[in-house]
C-alpha cells in the first residue's frame, strides 16, 4: 500500500481547502426573506418617543399611522381613508375599519382617541406631545369617524399624523410603552443590538401585503461594513449608504442606488451675546461659506449647495431667487462685518461633533471660509452626547448641525427655524427672529394654498434677514439594494427617512 508522504498530505489539504473556498460562503437571496442592513439599533421601540430614524423605520412596520405617503411623497391614507376640514374648522378623519390589530381586535375611532390622549398626557415624553395638546376636543361620533376640534385653526394637522412617532395603537394595550400595533409586521425574534426579525402579522388586513413574509434587519453600525455586506450579498438592502461608496454601487450592475436630497447641514448661533446677537454678523457668516466645497468634500459630491432656507426644490414654496439668498459672496460678508462694527473680524468658537465625519468635515470647511473673511473660529469637536448637551445649554458661539425637517411643508421646518421654542441642540440658542416665527405661525393657520405659498415666501425673506440659522448643504440620503428588489421608493425631500414604511411593498422580483 502506498504510504502518503508529508507533501501529498499537504497538497490534498490545500486542494480540499480551495474546493471549499471556491464556493461563495455567503447566503444567497431567498424568496420570502428580505435581509435589511439597519444603520443603528433602535434604542427602544416606544411608539411615540422620538429615538431616531432607524427606530422610526421599525416602528412604521410594526404600527400604522393615520396617514402616510405614496412613492411620490403625496399624502395617502393608512388607517384613515379620507380626511377633510369640516365647515366648523374641525379636522375629520374617516377610518378604515377593515384594519385589525396584531391581537385580532378591530381598529376603531376609540383607538385614535386613546392614542392622542396618551401622546398629549401630562407625563408624556412623546415627540408630538405639544402638537397633540393643541387639540381641544376629540370626538368619536361612530367607530369609523374621528373629529378633532383644534384650539386654533391649523392647516398642517394631517401632516402630524404621518410622522413615525405618531403610530396608532390599540386602546386596550396593557403596556403603553409597548402597545399593540396594527402594522404589516410583528417582531418574531430579536437580539438586542444585533438583529430584529419581523414576520408578517397574521391579521394584517391589506390583501397581498406585506410583499415579503420575513424581514431580517441586521445592525451594521459601521457604514463601510454595511456597504460591504450588501456588495458581498450578506444583505439585500441597506439604508444610509455612505457617500464615499455611492459611485461603487452605481457601477455595480447587480445593485441599485436610490438617493434623495432631504436632510441638510446648517449653522446655528448663540444669539444671547455679541457678536451673534447681531443679524448682520450671522448674515456675514451665511455669505462667507462656499457651499460647493462642503458638498464636494463632506459628501463626495452627493448633495447640493443650500444657500437659503431649506425649502425642497420642486415644492410650491421653493423660489429660485430666495434659494440663493445667502449666496457665497465674501465681499458682502466683509461689508456686513464692517457694518456691524467688526471691520477686522473677531475670534470665536465653532462647535461640532467628531462622532460623525460629515459634521466634522463640514465644520472644518466652514472654519476655513470664516477665516477668509476675518472670523477666526476655534474648532471644538466633541462626542455627540457632549454636542447635544452644550447645544441645549447654549454653551457655544456657532455650531454645525445636520437635520431633516419633519415634512416637506414649510411648517415642518418649525423645529429648526422657530427660535422661540424651548432650547434644543438643533436650533439656534436665544436668536431673535420674531418675523420668521410670526410668519411660520401665520402659514400654519392659513388654509388657502395660494395664500400659504405667499406667506412662506415672506417667511423665507424674513429668515434671510433675521438668520435664525444658515443653510449649508443638502445631503443625499441613499438606499442601496440588489437590482432584483422591487417595490421600494426613496421618498422625496424631508420624507426620505420615512421611506422605510414602503418595505411593506418590497420584495425580491
Amino acid at each position: 500500500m502506498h504510504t502518503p508522504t508529508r507533501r501529498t498530505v499537504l497538497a490534498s489539504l490545500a486542494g480540499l481547502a480551495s474546493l471549499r473556498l471556491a464556493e461563495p460562503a455567503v447566503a444567497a437571496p431567498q424568496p420570502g426573506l428580505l435581509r435589511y442592513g439597519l444603520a443603528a439599533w433602535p434604542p427602544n421601540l416606544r411608539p411615540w418617543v422620538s429615538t431616531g430614524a432607524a427606530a422610526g423605520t421599525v416602528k412604521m412596520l410594526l404600527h400604522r399611522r393615520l396617514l402616510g405617503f405614496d412613492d411620490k411623497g403625496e399624502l395617502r391614507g393608512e388607517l384613515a381613508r379620507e380626511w377633510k376640514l369640516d365647515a366648523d374648522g374641525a379636522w375629520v378623519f374617516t377610518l378604515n375599519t377593515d384594519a385589525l390589530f396584531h391581537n385580532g381586535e378591530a381598529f376603531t375611532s376609540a383607538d385614535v382617541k386613546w392614542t392622542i390622549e396618551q401622546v398629549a398626557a401630562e407625563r408624556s415624553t412623546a415627540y408630538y406631545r405639544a402638537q397633540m395638546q393643541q387639540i381641544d376636543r376629540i370626538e368619536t361620533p361612530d367607530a369609523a369617524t374621528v373629529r378633532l376640534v383644534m384650539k386654533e385653526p391649523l392647516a398642517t394637522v394631517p401632516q402630524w399624523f404621518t410622522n413615525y412617532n405618531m403610530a396608532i395603537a390599540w386602546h386596550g394595550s396593557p403596556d403603553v410603552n409597548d402597545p399593540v400595533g396594527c402594522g404589516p409586521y410583528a417582531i418574531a425574534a430579536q437580539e438586542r443590538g444585533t438583529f430584529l426579525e419581523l414576520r408578517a402579522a397574521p391579521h394584517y388586513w391589506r390583501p397581498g401585503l406585506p410583499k415579503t413574509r420575513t424581514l431580517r434587519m441586521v445592525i451594521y453600525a459601521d457604514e463601510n461594513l454595511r456597504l460591504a455586506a450588501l456588495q458581498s450579498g450578506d444583505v439585500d438592502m441597506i439604508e444610509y449608504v455612505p457617500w464615499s461608496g455611492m459611485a461603487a454601487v452605481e457601477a455595480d450592475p447587480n445593485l441599485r442606488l436610490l438617493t434623495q436630497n432631504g436632510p441638510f447641514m446648517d449653522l446655528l448661533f448663540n444669539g444671547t451675546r455679541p457678536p451673534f446677537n447681531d443679524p448682520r454678523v450671522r448674515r456675514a457668516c451665511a455669505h462667507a461659506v462656499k457651499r460647493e466645497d462642503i458638498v464636494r468634500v463632506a459628501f463626495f459630491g452627493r448633495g447640493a449647495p443650500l444657500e437659503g432656507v431649506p425649502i425642497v426644490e420642486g415644492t410650491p414654496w421653493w423660489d429660485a431667487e430666495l434659494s440663493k439668498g445667502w449666496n457665497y459672496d465674501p465681499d458682502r460678508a466683509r461689508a456686513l462685518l464692517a457694518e456691524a462694527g467688526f471691520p477686522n473680524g473677531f475670534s470665536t468658537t465653532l462647535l461640532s461633533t467628531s462622532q460623525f465625519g460629515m459634521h466634522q468635515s463640514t465644520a472644518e470647511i466652514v472654519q476655513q471660509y470664516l477665516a477668509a473673511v476675518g472670523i477666526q473660529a476655534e474648532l471644538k469637536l466633541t462626542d455627540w452626547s457632549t454636542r447635544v448637551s452644550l447645544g441645549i445649554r447654549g454653551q457655544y458661539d456657532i455650531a454645525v448641525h445636520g437635520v431633516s425637517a419633519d415634512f416637506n411643508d414649510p411648517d415642518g421646518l418649525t423645529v429648526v427655524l422657530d427660535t422661540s421654542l424651548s432650547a434644543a441642540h438643533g436650533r439656534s440658542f436665544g436668536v431673535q427672529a420674531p418675523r420668521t416665527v410670526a410668519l411660520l405661525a401665520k402659514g400654519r393657520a392659513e388654509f388657502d394654498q395660494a395664500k400659504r405659498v405667499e406667506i412662506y415666501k415672506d417667511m423665507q425673506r424674513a429668515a434671510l434677514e433675521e438668520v435664525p440659522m444658515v443653510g449649508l448643504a443638502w445631503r443625499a440620503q441613499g438606499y442601496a439594494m440588489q437590482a432584483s428588489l422591487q417595490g421600494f421608493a426613496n421618498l422625496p425631500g424631508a420624507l426620505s427617512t420615512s421611506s422605510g414604511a414602503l418595505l411593506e411593498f418590497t420584495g425580491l422580483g
Partner: protein
Amino acid sequence: MLWLLRRLGTSLLLMWVVATIVFMALHVVPGDPAEVLLSTGGTSPDAYAVAELRTQLGLDLPLSVQYGRFLAGLTRGDLGVSLVDDYPVAQEIMLRLPRTLELILAGSLIAVAIGLPTGTLAAVRHGGGFDRGAGAVAAVLQSVPVFVLGTLLILVFAQWLRWMPAGGFVPASQGLGQHLLLLSLPALAVGKGLAAVVYRMTRASVLDALSRDHVRTARAKGLTPRRVLARHVVRNALSPVATVLGLHMGALLGGTVLVEYVFNWPGLSTPLLRAVEARDYPMVVGIILTVSALFLLINLAMDFLYAALDPRILRS
C-alpha cells in the same frame, strides 16, 4: 491560602474603585441620558419631555443618592437595567461576554499557532533568511492597526473574492461551519499583534535556552536535535512566553473593541460603545466591571500557569 485571600481582597477593592471612578466620571462629563435619547437622529426634543424623562429615570435625584442606590444594587449582585430600554444589564453581559471571550481565545490560539513554531524556527535558524523574513513580517503585523487589517480582510475576502461574509455572527448551535467562518477573520485580526509578540518572545527565549549548559550536555549525551529542542529548549522557553501571553490576553480585551465593531461581532464592545454614547450609566459600569474582573482573573490564572510551568516559583 492567605496569598489567595489577599489577592481576592485586593481584587474586590480594585473593582469598587473602578466602579466608583466610572460612575463618577460618567456623571461629571457633559451629556445627559435623557437629552441624548430624545435627540437621537438629530431631532430637537421638547424641554418638558426631557425633564419628564429625567424624572422617570431618577436622574433628577442628588448624585449621592444615585451612587448609594447603585452601590446597594451591586452588593446584591444587581447591575441594574439600561436607562435606554430597561433591559437588564446582567442579561446583556451574560449573552455577549462568551462571544468576546471566544474571540479572544480564538485570537490567542491563532497567535500561539503562528508565533510559537515561527519563533522557534527563527531561533534555530537565527541570522538566516527565514529569521530575517519572519522578523520583518512580525514588525508589520505589530504595526498595522487592527481596523486597517480588518478593513483589508473584509475588502479582500468579502468584497473581492466573496469567500467570506463581510461580518456578523451566527450562533454555533445554528451552524458550526458558518459560525467558525464568521469567527475566522476577526480572530485573525485580534490575534495578529499577539502572534508577533509570541514570535519575538519565543525566539528570544529559545535563543537563550539554546546557549544553556544543560542543552549542551543533552547534545553531548547524543540526543537528537529534535528531542533536545522539544524537551530541553522549548519547554524551558515556555515560561516567559506564557507570562507575556497572559499579560497580552488581558490587553486583548481592549483590542477587541475595534475588531468587534469592524466585523459586527456582537460581543461586549458594541453595547459598551453604544452605552457610552448614550450615557447609559448602568450598562457602562456593568460592562467595565465585568471586563475588570476578567482582567484580574486572567492575571490570577497566569500566575498559576506560570507556577505550574516552573515549579521553582511555588517553592520560592
